[in-house]
């Protein structure tokens, strides 16, 4: 037993040093499980950098890329509402919970709008975990979040990220506002170019899967917001109608969100959109964002107790 403990300690130190050395000296193209990318495609680094400028905002948006590229602060500003978009690429409820715990008190919004794209409830959260590990500070909550994701690459990347943060190697990093065809807009929004979806695609029938650990994290997030007395509205952003129609259990998904007892709206059933409003089958282009945001603003003003006319 003593030898086993000694070996375990030795192996942990060896592996940690090995991860650091491998990440530091081996080119990224040879990496597999150390996926450390500061300044990734979703502009998370920029978003978290300017978060302190949005204290006391009216609305905070949470969710995956459908939220990140779906809620434009400039459009809300035109209607007298300040908004900070805390959405991020492939953000699952496991990561939403961490972001709420870290930043919601600092942002102190009147209303939290959670975009509930069912696809992320079926994801294990690895991509978003890697994004957070590389672009946000590490803490005990990061370890808990990584444990919930249960992915070797997240653990390896976290060790390497700890080293990078301790040595301050990325302290001076400045993220480009324009990259991969997207533009970062102050307030956390990422604008995509106006590209029209060619929706002649045929999608096979399938069902949304809502993983239990994602549902559990989602409920914990709602509980944390409720404890803080923050109003929550759930919104399911529109996706291309052919893609939406290929899923046979949309009603079951709606019922799950309705059973939370919160205000919930499935915009796929409310807003008539055409392929001309979409960038791809899941994301709106800027035309679609304008239509959706106007609808959501009116919806919020009609149902929200925290946001008055």
């Amino acid at each position, binding site marked *: 037993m003593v030898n086993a403990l000694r070996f375990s300690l*030795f*192996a942990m130190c*060896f592996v940690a040093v*090995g991860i650091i050395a*491998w990440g530091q000296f081996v080119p990224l193209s*040879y990496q597999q499980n*150390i996926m450390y990318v500061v300044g990734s495609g979703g502009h998370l680094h920029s978003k978290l950098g300017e978060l302190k400028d949005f204290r006391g905002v009216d609305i905070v948006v949470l969710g995956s890329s459908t939220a990140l590229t779906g809620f434009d602060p400039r459009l809300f500003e035109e209607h007298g509402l300040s908004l900070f978009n805390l959405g991020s690429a492939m953000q699952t409820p496991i990561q939403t919970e961490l972001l709420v715990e870290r930043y919601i008190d600092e942002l102190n919004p009147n209303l939290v709008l959670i975009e509930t794209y069912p696809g992320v409830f079926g994801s294990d959260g690895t991509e978003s975990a890697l994004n957070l590990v590389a672009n946000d500070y590490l803490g005990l909550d990061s370890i808990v979040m990584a444990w919930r994701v249960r992915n*070797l690459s997240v653990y390896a990347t976290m060790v390497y990220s700890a080293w990078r943060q301790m040595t301050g190697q990325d302290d001076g990093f400045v993220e480009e506002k324009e990259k991969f065809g997207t533009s970062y807009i102050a307030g956390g929004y990422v604008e995509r170019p106006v590209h029209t979806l060619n929706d002649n695609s045929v999608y096979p029938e399938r069902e949304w899967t809502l993983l239990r650990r994602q549902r559990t994290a989602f409920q914990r997030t709602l509980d944390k917001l409720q404890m803080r007395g923050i109003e929550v509205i759930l919104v399911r952003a529109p996706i291309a109608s052919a893609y939406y129609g290929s899923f046979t259990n949309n009603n079951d998904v709606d019922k799950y969100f309705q059973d939370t007892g919160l205000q919930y709206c499935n915009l796929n059933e409310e807003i008539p959109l055409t392929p001309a409003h979409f960038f791809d089958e899941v994301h709106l282009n800027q035309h679609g964002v304008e239509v959706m945001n106007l609808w959501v603003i009116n919806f919020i003003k009609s149902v929200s107790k925290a946001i008055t006319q």
Partner: protein
Amino acid sequence: MRNFAYPYFSRDIAEFWRRWHISLSTWFRDYVYIPLGGSRGPMARRIRNTLVVFALSGLWHGANWTFVVWGILNALYFLPLMLLKRNRGNMEIASRGMLLPALSDLLAIISTFALTSVTWVFFRAESVPVALSFLRRMFSSSLFTVPQLRESIPTLILIFMFVAVEWLGREHEYALAAVGSVASRRVRWLAYAMACLAIVLYGQTTGSPFIYFQF
């Protein structure tokens, strides 16, 4: 019971089947081959018995023609050795007592591995046409192009390390059996820690079904 005895160091198919899935081979020998007459009787009967045993062992793996083809291919590899009475030529482990394989052993090992690899294409394919399509592409003109190895270097290094460990321990029941007597605790711990590091750096992070779940 020892079930696999370094089968990929076999120098011919007969030796391969003495070293691969020994429990199953023994069962088929005792309950199918010998009751059918085994190696006794006229040549035609011995050939029939061999084909039946291999085909049945293919079917044992699944109700698909691919497994039957896999079994019969192995039988076709085995029959020439049996007919030439060379199926019991390599009873000892290859290059016993030698650090490196003899050239003749090395060539025999490589060619036996290549032959079994062809049969594995049928074993893993969804159907016979898919397997044939796979083989057509394997043996197309691309066979003579220079492979792009850059991205495969870590994998090749790991493969070399595993093969080396197996080779150096081949005269023992399991490859690492002798390690404790030749390497100090520090060396062993370092090797184990390096294995842990390799898993962390390159271990598969997405699930894939365990191949034998389908059985």
